[in-house]
């Protein structure tokens, strides 16, 4: 049943990624070259809807949050390394498989590379555990827990900030 839900969720998500035109190298590089912010619009719209819904349901006790640990070394270094590779391949892991579904077969090379990258990481993991993974380990913290304020206050501020960013992008024709 869990597998079935995964498949259905993936089909819906893939459908929307295709309709939002975010499965394209041209759109991903467009954002990284600060010329076409389609993927940023997609991501921020997703986050604005999901953060309100998830925290509302969490307050009602209907869902559980699943927070990834904050480890400064791993999150920042890994994030930057990912970004450098992303700029080269032009697809992220989720959009690479969607791009193949749309006929963009250069993404197959990207997927092959990502599988190799995962295998390389599996070999580096033990060495990283004692180093990068110990640099600034703060556990499962969130912005509201860090700031010691209500999550709704954080959400309202972020909604306003994201809306402001989107408005600016529209004004600049990006």
């Amino acid at each position, binding site marked *: 049943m869990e597998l079935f839900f995964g498949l259905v969720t993936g089909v819906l998500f893939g459908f929307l990624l295709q309709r939002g035109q975010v499965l394209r190298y041209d759109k991903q590089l467009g954002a990284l070259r600060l010329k076409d912010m389609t993927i940023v619009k997609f991501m921020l719209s997703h986050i604005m809807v999901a953060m309100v819904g998830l925290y509302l349901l969490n307050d009602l006790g209907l869902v559980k949050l699943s927070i990834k640990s904050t480890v400064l070394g791993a999150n920042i270094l890994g994030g930057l390394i990912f970004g450098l590779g992303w700029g080269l391949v032009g697809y992220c892991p*989720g959009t690479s*498989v969607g791009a193949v579904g749309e006929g963009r077969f250069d993404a197959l090379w990207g997927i092959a*590379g990502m599988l190799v990258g995962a295998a390389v990481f599996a070999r580096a993991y033990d060495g990283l555990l004692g180093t990068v993974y110990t640099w600034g380990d703060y556990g499962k913290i969130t912005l509201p827990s860090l700031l010691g304020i209500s999550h709704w206050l954080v959400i309202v501020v972020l909604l306003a900030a994201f809306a402001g960013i989107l408005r600016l992008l529209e004004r600049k024709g990006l």
Partner: protein
Amino acid sequence: MPTQSKGWSPYLAGALSGLVSIGSVLIAGKYLGASTTFVRGAGMAERLYAPDVVTTLAYYIKEKPVFDWQFLFVCGIAAGAYLAARLYGDFKVQLVPDTWSARFGPSPWRRAAAAFVGGVIAMFGARLADGCPSGHGLSGMSQLAVSGYLAGAGFFIGGIVMARLLYRGK
């Protein structure tokens, strides 16, 4: 059918995908993510010729090479994208993206090499960061996780730097 439809507004598609993500958490308790599946996929491939590796490496023991919710989710993305592309006349086989071709020429091998190397680097980084733009960018930032905002900033800073290097002055 049109040959290349214009697609939907990214705001509409993004907001609807946010609802999909809420529904997934409510019904199945699962948050969207994609990069762990590549570890499981790599483990499945390695198991074919070196079964020992998969049972001894700590990372493959942590992320076992089995089909789970996320693996099927990732497969579903390809199916959903195919469905939408077919339905709206958007499906088009392309080996070299337009932007790439305009900058680096039409060679599919040059593009293949860059995509492969980029994929290796990107996945290494995603596993180190413990997530990709789905797990950290969408799910993490929606949950206000500090890790999501840090990794998300890293993704874009690294990406902008690489895009500058590749498309300098263009």
